[in-house]
């Protein structure tokens, strides 16, 4: 990269260090909620001796890495995604040694870190380039794109660009100052019609922690929030590159009445911050209930107690009484999750049998827990079966896992198994806010039994198109392939039940228009529809796989995931990125692990942590990053430790 004279000065100014990051550039292209992000960095070993040069990028857990390339002193390494076993064999043939790059799950809320490190002689030039793709999920009425920026030092050419293109137009775009006060003014937003451009380009001086400091203050998240124009309750159908994506996010509907049983873990481990934050959140959550809603509270440790044996209307008197009850809870004792959930389901069943439940209402259980069961049934797979057996089709279960010890896999599995979702929150200062935010996402169900259909023989390979509920502020997305047709119009029919009415909404679109529009766009991601379809399909297959009841089923799903991930070049738990030099002599392997916490039941055992090695040119010595916790376990960690093993687990 050619430095301008000013940058040259900056460059000289910071050249004192032995490693110089010449440029650090991040570019996100978001088209119709699908983001392709590229992180590029060029580094010089400006020291007098060989040394290790690292390139760490934090990416959202929900993203798929789609490529990583490296250029070390003119030798280019190009990545390609392959089946894990294939990639490993190719690597093994190269008989490479050591570890150089990998994706190590950083134990943080929802991201992982891509780490790579090369050891190069003095004067070496290295250029790293990482690509990853992800879908923006609409939560609480907006999409949020987070870029984790951590250049680690002052950079003469530091720049972040986020380009958003939304065919229906952007209704709002914001950049909350999550990166720190000193940068708020430096983030520029320009937006018109369907496009927005956010740029952050601080000079060296603006990057400093203080006027005379030499280290960078840039270490955090640049956040972009936006929403799109939408026609109240109509759907939005987009066709591009032979694929369609259907977005549905109605807003002008009255919420359905709710029947909620809050199941709160009050075992000894909840003592302190966790309980305090839970009580605080519950106060706000209870205030949100209306007289159209019905609710009760079950608090459990080794015993199971009910605030009210039956569901009661959300009147002010009942809510006040419930708040007082919650405030007086003293956590202690063991954890009997099974009994508590059985009790909650019984309460809903009883209310339903006594016709106390409005047929158009929504019945849900919200479980808040911080740990594993220690009393009563403690086998997680048995609890999962018990809950599944007693839960009725019209009930759903939402789980919130508080803290680090919780077996989040288990909570997620029982939620997904019962038409709900799970969320992990950490018992820190804003756990109450996280709990409230989670509840806000499920507190306004607007529709039940949503189905998105298409005329016969017009589409194929459709992702999930039947949804149990739609909550205000979220968005239901269906994707698929468009079959060849004489007509230039694709039509969808969305049926659903709202409070007091049933609705069918017809949405149609021209199948050629968007590609014409995208061809004019300079910064759109033209392959968005194809990649978004694959992304959604793979995500759904991965969750189907974790719920698959037999090894044969799991094997079939595994094959499908691998085929898709290789075709669309996604690094998933079942594929790996093989990065090879031009002459294919040098190889680097990167794959992505699963969560480190032991999974509960039939499902893929924890993926071996990073096993990333690469063949190195003679002049490159490999250094291994300091062993992390996980790696201390040595070889045995490489072997899966659990049941229903299928190839490629």
């Amino acid at each position, binding site marked *: 990269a050619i430095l301008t004279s000013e940058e040259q000065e900056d460059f000289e100014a910071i050249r004192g260090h032995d490693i110089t990051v010449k440029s650090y550039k991040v570019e996100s292209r978001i088209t119709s909620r699908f983001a392709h992000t590229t992180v590029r960095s060029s580094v010089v070993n400006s020291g007098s001796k060989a040394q290790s040069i690292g390139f760490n990028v934090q990416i959202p857990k929900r993203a798929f890495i789609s490529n990583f390339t490296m250029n070390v002193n003119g030798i280019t390494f190009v990545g390609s995604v392959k089946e894990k076993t294939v990639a490993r064999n190719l690597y093994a043939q190269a008989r490479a040694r050591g570890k150089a790059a990998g994706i190590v799950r950083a134990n943080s809320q929802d991201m992982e870190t891509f780490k790579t490190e090369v050891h190069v002689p003095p004067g070496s030039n290295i250029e790293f380039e990482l690509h990853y793709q992800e879908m923006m999920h609409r939560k609480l009425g907006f999409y949020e794109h987070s870029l984790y920026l951590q250049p680690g030092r002052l950079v003469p050419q530091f720049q972040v660009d986020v380009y958003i293109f939304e065919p229906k137009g952007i209704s709002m775009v914001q950049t909350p100052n999550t990166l720190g006060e000193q940068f708020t003014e430096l983030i520029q937003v320009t937006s018109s019609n369907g496009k927005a451009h956010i740029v952050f380009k601080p000079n060296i001086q603006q990057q400093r922690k203080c006027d005379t400091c030499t280290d960078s203050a840039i270490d955090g998240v640049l956040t972009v929030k936006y929403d799109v124009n939408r*026609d*109240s*309750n*109509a*759907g939005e159908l987009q066709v591009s590159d032979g694929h369609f994506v259907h977005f549905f996010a109605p807003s*002008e*509907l*009255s*919420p359905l009445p709710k029947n909620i049983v809050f199941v709160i873990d009050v075992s000894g481990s909840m003592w302190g911050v966790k309980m305090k934050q839970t009580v605080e959140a519950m106060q706000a959550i209870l205030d949100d209930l209306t007289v*159209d809603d019905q609710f009760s509270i079950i608090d459990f440790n080794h015993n199971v107690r009910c605030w009210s044996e039956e569901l009661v209307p959300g009147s002010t008197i009942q809510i006040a009484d419930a708040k007082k009850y919650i405030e007086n809870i003293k956590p202690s004792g063991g954890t009997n999750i099974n009994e508590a959930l059985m009790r909650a389901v019984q309460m809903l069943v009883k209310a339903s049998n006594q016709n106390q439940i409005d047929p158009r209402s929504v019945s849900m259980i919200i479980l808040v827990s911080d740990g594993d069961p220690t009393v009563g049934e403690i086998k997680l797979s048995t609890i999962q079966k018990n809950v599944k057996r007693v839960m009725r089709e019209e009930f759903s279960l939402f789980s919130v896992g508080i803290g680090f010890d919780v077996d989040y896999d288990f909570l997620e599995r029982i939620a997904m198994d019962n038409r709900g979702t799970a969320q992990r929150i950490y018992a820190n200062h804003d756990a109450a806010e996280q709990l409230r935010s989670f509840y806000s996402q499920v507190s306004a169900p607007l529709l039940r039994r949503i189905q998105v259909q298409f005329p016969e023989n017009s589409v194929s390979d459709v992702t999930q198109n039947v949804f149990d509920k739609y909550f205000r502020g979220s968005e239901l997305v269906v994707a698929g392939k468009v079959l060849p047709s004489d007509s230039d119009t694709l039509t969808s029919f969305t049926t659903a039940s*709202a*409070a*007091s*009415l*049933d*609705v*069918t*909404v*017809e*949405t*149609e679109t021209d199948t050629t228009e968007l590609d014409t529009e995208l061809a004019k766009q300079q910064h759109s991601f033209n392959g968005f529809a194809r990649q978004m379809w694959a992304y959604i399909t793979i995500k759904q297959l991965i969750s189907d796989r974790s719920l698959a009841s037999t090894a044969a089923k799991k094997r079939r799903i595994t094959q499908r995931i691998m085929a898709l991930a290789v075709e669309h070049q996604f690094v998933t738990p079942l594929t790996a990125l093989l990065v090879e030099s031009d002459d294919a002599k040098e190889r680097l392997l990167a794959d992505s692990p699963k969560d480190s916490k032991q999974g509960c039941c039939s499902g893929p055992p924890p993926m071996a942590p990073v096993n990333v090695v690469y063949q190195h040119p003679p002049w490159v010595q490999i250094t291994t990053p300091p062993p992390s916790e996980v790696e201390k376990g040595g070889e045995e960690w490489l072997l899966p430790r659990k049941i229903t093993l299928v190839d490629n687990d």
Partner: protein
Amino acid sequence: PHFIIHLPRSDMDVCFNIDSKPGHILNLVSDSGAGVVVNGQLISSKVSTKKLNTYFGTISIYYQPDGVSVTVSTSSIALSDGRSNHSFTWGATAEITQNGLRVSIVKNSHVKITINNNIQVMVLLHRVWKKHPVNVDFLGIYIPNDNQYSPLVHGLIGQFSTEPEVSVYDVHEGLDPLKKEATMEVKGNKLLVTRGWQKDYRHDKKRGSNIYCWFIHNSGKGFIDGHYTDYIVPDLNSFLQTP
């Protein structure tokens, strides 16, 4: 707004205008027997030229037994049942059913409201060019003659569900050579009527198709029961107060 009343037995169309004020709510159908009321609220064109033109800006259909009302405006179609409110735009074709009520929206064109499969109202959307100096978006309403009301039905349009005896005679040249005049006998009144035409926009929203009719002057006086001001009601869901 213009009114065209089709009289199948006489095989005749009769027209009249109601020149009322913006904001006024005119009762079009009031059937306390079936529990159905249809009202229309007036809006005016942008610039108050010397002659004030008023149009229907909002049409409301209220079905009392279910407590459900459908309020159609030039920007949205809203359903309300006292507890829940749902609003749809003209931007999407949609079919909505709520108990005995069915609402069929055709994107940016019209909406049909059907009550218990025996009373139907169709509202047509007229979208004008946003920057037009005078015209504004407005609505048309079309009510079939075979709606099954109760005998108590009334209103500016509802009163004609029982077709009155009409005879027209002494047709002669009028002041305007294109518009003949004649004498109409109806409801015991003798009226001077003029041959004219008005537009039915159901088949061609832009130009409309001409409906030739006998035009009643003075806001339909003598053809409608009482005076048109008798049909101004306080709310969109108000029934007509029976005299």
